[in-house]
């Protein structure tokens, strides 16, 4: 087992990792930029070293500084957390070269899943359902018609160089195809200088349902069931829950199996998540794999009663997994609280927290690095706390979350707590009849 782990991260996840290390009697090294000198993870670690100025590129993203810090503190492993370098294949590789254990997958596995096209192909070969689509770019109208018939309408055409919804058109009937392709090409050329288009099946009423997996160093993998993360704003998750209100035992079994196949196909070591899109008919399609621990991991931890960080460390230390799968025993919801002003289009609101009272009580977990008097630096992401409620039923988990959020006092900065309180009251949320498109048409009531 490792003697000392360096946490190459900051904020609440750094604290999360330090907590598990303490329970496992592993010494911890915190790294911090000058902007994070007063941060909680610095105070809770056994040792702390300053690795650079506030800019992430010069501190938390600097492989040189992180490895140097590990070298001078004699750390034998590095936990990358999420974000930053956690999915950087090169970082996994240099750790390996320098003989420091990277707590996560191999550079090969990260690379295999990092490129969208490669990942899709790898999953398809492993028997994981992928979103049906054209093989490369659309050459002509005739070819496009053929692909669409093969996939089945409705289809969506997307710009290959694209993003942000530009150069995208949904087509319901063949008669619409020609005009849609022409206008998409024009928009793509104008937005990206590249009018290349490809086609995919359009997933109707898509839900974002992801499966947590763990793989060990011996080729075994298991799943820990799903999280529903469909409540998203501009592709940022705001609320996650497990089990998914849309899930059935049969669907869970199929998705779990597919996720395990995917993990084994890339020789995945560590904790990871396979994200799927699930349509209204309960067909599921591989979207992407996150080769790291995720922000919303506490949701799974609470419904299964499992420490996922401990599992990551054990797997990295060479301990094999049992291969057992895990199923939710409770219902949990997580709200990501950000320092943003919901009445000003979620504009970030950094600053000093003058008063803080965290929620507590039965069924409430709060993962946070903030404290009264803490100044939220403007250089990093705006998430300041995760509130997780756990109960026996979804209704009770919602009630507990509402109660907890109404106790959560933060003064000095604006937070997204008002948004969460409104969403928890929303009839579609309560009925479980929402998908990833829901927040596009939802507005914050006054």
């Amino acid at each position, binding site marked *: 087992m490792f003697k000392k782990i360096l946490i190459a991260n900051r904020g609440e996840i750094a604290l999360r990792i330090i907590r598990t290390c303490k329970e496992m009697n592993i010494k911890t*090294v915190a790294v911090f930029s*000058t902007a994070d*000198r007063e941060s909680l993870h*610095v*105070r*809770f*670690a*056994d*040792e*702390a*070293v*300053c*690795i*650079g*100025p506030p800019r992430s590129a010069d*501190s938390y993203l600097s492989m*040189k*500084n992180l*490895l*140097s*810090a590990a*070298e*001078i*503190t*004699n750390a034998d492993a590095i936990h990358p957390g999420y974000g930053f370098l956690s999915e950087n294949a090169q970082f996994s590789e240099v750790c390996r070269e*320098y003989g420091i254990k990277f707590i996560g997958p191999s550079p090969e596995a990260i690379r295999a899943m990092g490129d969208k096209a490669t990942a899709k192909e790898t999953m398809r070969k492993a028997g994981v359902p992928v979103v049906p689509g054209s093989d490369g770019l659309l050459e002509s109208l005739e070819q496009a018609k053929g692909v669409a018939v093969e996939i089945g309408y409705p289809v969506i055409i997307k710009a290959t160089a694209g993003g942000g919804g530009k150069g995208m058109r949904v087509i319901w009937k063949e008669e619409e195809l020609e005009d849609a392709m022409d206008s998409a090409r024009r928009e793509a050329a104008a937005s990206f200088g590249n009018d290349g288009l490809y086609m995919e099946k359009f997933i109707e009423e898509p839900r974002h349902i992801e499966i947590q997996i763990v793989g060990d160093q011996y080729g075994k993998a298991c799943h820990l069931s799903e999280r529903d993360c469909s409540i998203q704003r501009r592709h940022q998750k705001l609320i996650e829950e497990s089990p998914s209100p849309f899930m059935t035992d049969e669907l869970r079994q199929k998705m779990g199996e597919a996720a395990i196949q995917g993990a084994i196909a890339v020789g995945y070591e560590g904790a990871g998540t396979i994200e799927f899109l699930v349509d209204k008919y309960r067909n599921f399609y591989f979207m992407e794999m996150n080769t790291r621990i995720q922000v919303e991991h506490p949701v799974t931890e609470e419904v299964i009663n499992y420490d996922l960080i401990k599992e990551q460390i054990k797997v990295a230390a060479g301990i094999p997994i049992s291969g057992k799968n895990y199923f939710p025993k409770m219902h949990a919801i997580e709200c990501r609280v950000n320092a943003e002003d919901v009445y000003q289009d979620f504009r970030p609101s950094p600053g000093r927290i003058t008063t803080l009272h965290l929620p507590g009580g039965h069924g409430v977990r709060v993962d946070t690095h903030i404290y009264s008097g803490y100044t939220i630096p403007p250089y990093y992401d705006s998430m300041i706390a995760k509130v997780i409620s756990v109960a026996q039923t979804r209704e009770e988990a919602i009630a507990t979350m509402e109660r907890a959020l109404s106790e959560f006092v933060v003064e000095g900065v604006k937070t997204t707590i008002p948004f969460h309180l409104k969403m928890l009251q929303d009839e579609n949320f309560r009925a479980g009849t929402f998908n990833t498109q829901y927040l596009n048409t939802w507005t914050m009531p006054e």
Partner: protein
Amino acid sequence: MDIKEIQDLIRFVAKSGVTEVELEKEGFKLVIKASGTVQNSGHATPAVVMPTPIAYAPATVAPTAMAPAAVHVSSSPTPPSAPSAPAQAPVPSSGSLLKSPMIGTFYRSSGPDKDPFVKVGDRVEKGQVICIVEAMKLFNEIEAEQSGTITKVLVENSTPVEYDQPLFEIDPS
């Protein structure tokens, strides 16, 4: 140094939050280290560590005021200190600090048998190489950010330093 002066020093260490005091005088060396993890309380009970006692002349030497030959005081932030407690001088009364622009291991010269780049009393020009900080087997020459005279060397050769850690005290005049 008599027992009363040692007791006073121990009390000073306990109250000040300082973690380590090393005192060297002619024929005498005393090291006091605060022990245990201290979180948010200034009350460390220091363990007095006296290394192999050097014969010292007690009563015949008139107890002097506390003006020892060389004192290195390490202070740490409230939680446990940085690795190997690299010595950080308290803010000096005059002069500027030259700080490390990176994390790594500090070397005073370009090789084990080479002369140090700079010594106390040397005049340095802005841009002049004053030390090396090594990271990942790469030896980075560190240049002075300003001109002046070196008044103190704050870090021992071959010890780890972190970003922004003061390395030299310099008199910019």
